[in-house]
């Protein structure tokens, strides 16, 4: 059984013009010890589909579908039960640790509060655990770091602290939402290596949400590509990124500079702009920007179908591998 199984997830958010669909029928699963990459442009619904699991959507949001985590449907748990399960078994890391860390509380306090609440440790045991956690994320000098405040650390170190807090209760699943986007590449590499080690050593499952296919390519085992609230292609990392089958996946890769490709190769931008929630085109949402679109793309929403070990939502399938 997979650690996390999401089926038919649909999220609608309240706006001035009524409920707007931001996640439109998404399926995926996350296995134990794997890094599952979720990629897409801003506004594609990748973050909302994760916040839905934790009951963190804004007031008035409507959620449908099922989210099985360790056999229980998170969407059907009472709020207090959900907080208990998600607080202990699911950790979350956000893009900007400056906003997710409390500026007025010491690092130690933020680490111990969590473990005392969820694991019932006494003060001394919690303090030991705090130092241990900071060692685990390779923060230099953990003994004095527990007494320091977030502003005394650099961006990369703050992200390590945020990861330590997320790991405090030994969660089974870590959701990392753009964890390296605000960091320099040299620091980003360190965080990616940290996540990779935690997954291997602690049998931790990681959902890595990112707009950066390079980041996803470094540590994800399986990937899903989101567009306008739906999954357009998913499968093993190597298959999807080396031989993309969906025109959108292909277009995203063509827009990127490839460090090993010829430098004179021109970057190919995708025509048009991604649609905003509330004005999603009918049929395949990508059709107005797709050079391969045919009549049916404008009319019918393509289902996500299994083809050769991957899932693809494109009836044209212009890049079929013979």
């Amino acid at each position, binding site marked *: 059984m997979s650690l996390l199984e999401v089926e038919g997830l649909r999220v609608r958010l309240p706006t001035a013009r009524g409920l707007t669909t931001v996640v439109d029928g998404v399926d995926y699963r996350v296995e134990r010890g794997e890094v599952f990459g979720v990629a897409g*442009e*801003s506004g594609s619904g990748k973050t909302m589909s994760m916040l839905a699991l934790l009951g963190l959507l804004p007031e008035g949001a409507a959620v449908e579908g099922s989210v099985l985590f360790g056999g229980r449907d998170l969407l059907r748990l009472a709020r207090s039960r959900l907080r208990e399960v998600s607080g202990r078994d699911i950790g979350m890391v956000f893009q900007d640790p400056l906003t997710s860390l409390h500026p007025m509380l010491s690092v130690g306090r933020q680490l111990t509060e969590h473990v005392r609440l969820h694991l019932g440790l006494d003060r001394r045991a919690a303090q030991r655990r705090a130092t241990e956690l900071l060692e685990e994320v390779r923060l230099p000098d953990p003994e004095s770091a527990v007494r320091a405040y977030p502003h005394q650390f*650099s*961006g*990369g*170190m703050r992200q390590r602290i945020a990861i330590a807090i997320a790991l405090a209760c030994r969660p089974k699943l870590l959701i990392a939402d753009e964890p390296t986007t605000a960091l*320099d*590449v*040299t*620091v*980003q*590499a*360190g965080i*990616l*290596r940290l996540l*990779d080690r935690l997954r291997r050593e602690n049998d931790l499952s990681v959902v890595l949400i990112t*707009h*950066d*296919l*390079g*980041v*996803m*390519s*470094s*540590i994800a085992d399986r990937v899903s590509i989101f567009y306008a609230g739906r999954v357009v292609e998913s499968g093993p*990392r*190597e*298959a*999807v*990124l*080396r031989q993309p089958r969906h025109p959108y996946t292909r*277009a*995203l*890769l063509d*827009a*990127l*500079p*490839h*460090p*090993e490709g010829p*430098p004179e*190769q*021109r*970057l*190919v*931008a*995708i025509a048009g*702009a*991604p649609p905003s929630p509330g004005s999603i085109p009918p049929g395949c949402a990508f059709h107005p920007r797709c050079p391969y679109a045919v009549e049916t793309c404008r009319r019918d929403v393509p289902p996500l179908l299994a083809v050769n070990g991957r899932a693809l939502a494109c009836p044209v399938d212009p890049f079929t591998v013979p």
Partner: protein
Amino acid sequence: MSALELDDIVVEYDRRDSGRIRAVAGASISVARGQIVGLVGESGCGKSSLARAAVGLVKPAGGTVRFDGNEVTPLRRRARPRELVRLQLVFQNPYSSLNPRRKVGSQLADALVDAGTRRARAARVRELCEVVGLSATAAERYPHEFSGGQRQRIAIARTLAAEPTVLVLDEPLASLDASAQAQLANLLVGLSRELGLGLLLISHDLAIVRHVADVVSVMYLGVIVEQGATRRLWELPLHPYSEALIGAVPHPDGRGFLPEALPGEVPDPGRPPSGCRFHPRCPYAFDRCPREEPPLVPMADGRLAACWLQPEGAEPAPPARLATARSDD
């Protein structure tokens, strides 16, 4: 002759608690017309300070900035002399550099150098929109009606209104989606080739700089550590820091390449390390590195490098090989 010449620039700031810090500690860069020069480095290395000094937004504590032979003096209350208007700056964040309450067209018209008739100005504004790949009707709309990438193009159109010969761009591609980034990168290359613009492109994204820039300068803690043709620098980085920056770039090819992390952090510019500023993080550092600061010297292929492993005038070689050869001696 280079259009923009920065010679041995020093930029210092006052810090409340610990006196003056040196954000740029003697850096030289030149940009010729039609040339794209990339300036890369981690955040806090002084690249934005150097950009601000280049256009006269901060007064350098040392060194000179010359633009078409005229000295660039710090901006004051009086209007810039006409010659200096041809040097323009594009900021990182187009959300804050455009006025949200005024139509795009009127903001572009402000920057036109030749007044002309009303009709001529309107025509020029429409033309500018088209040059940057927006429809001519964009002039009638407000900045909030555009995406981040389009707003950045509006910001570029506004600098083009001043008929510049050199643009300094401070992280123009950061915070854009991949597709918008590709569009803008292609636009910059086009502008440089077609209008003969010189571009000083400041970016932390090496992969994109490699696609766009003709030459690259690598900056670390206020000094330039390597400078040379982009292609050669990427194929064979001479400075260990350039090598580390390139090794940290992820590859979006699905092969699962795990980028190399650079240990440690950028030190406080208020207390730079002795000798070579990179030595505490350098995997090849030896006894000379903490003692003496290596000068930026030309190599046999014309590139410049500031590393004790790379002797002046020698054939370029990978730092790892030179370090091994040295320890074998």
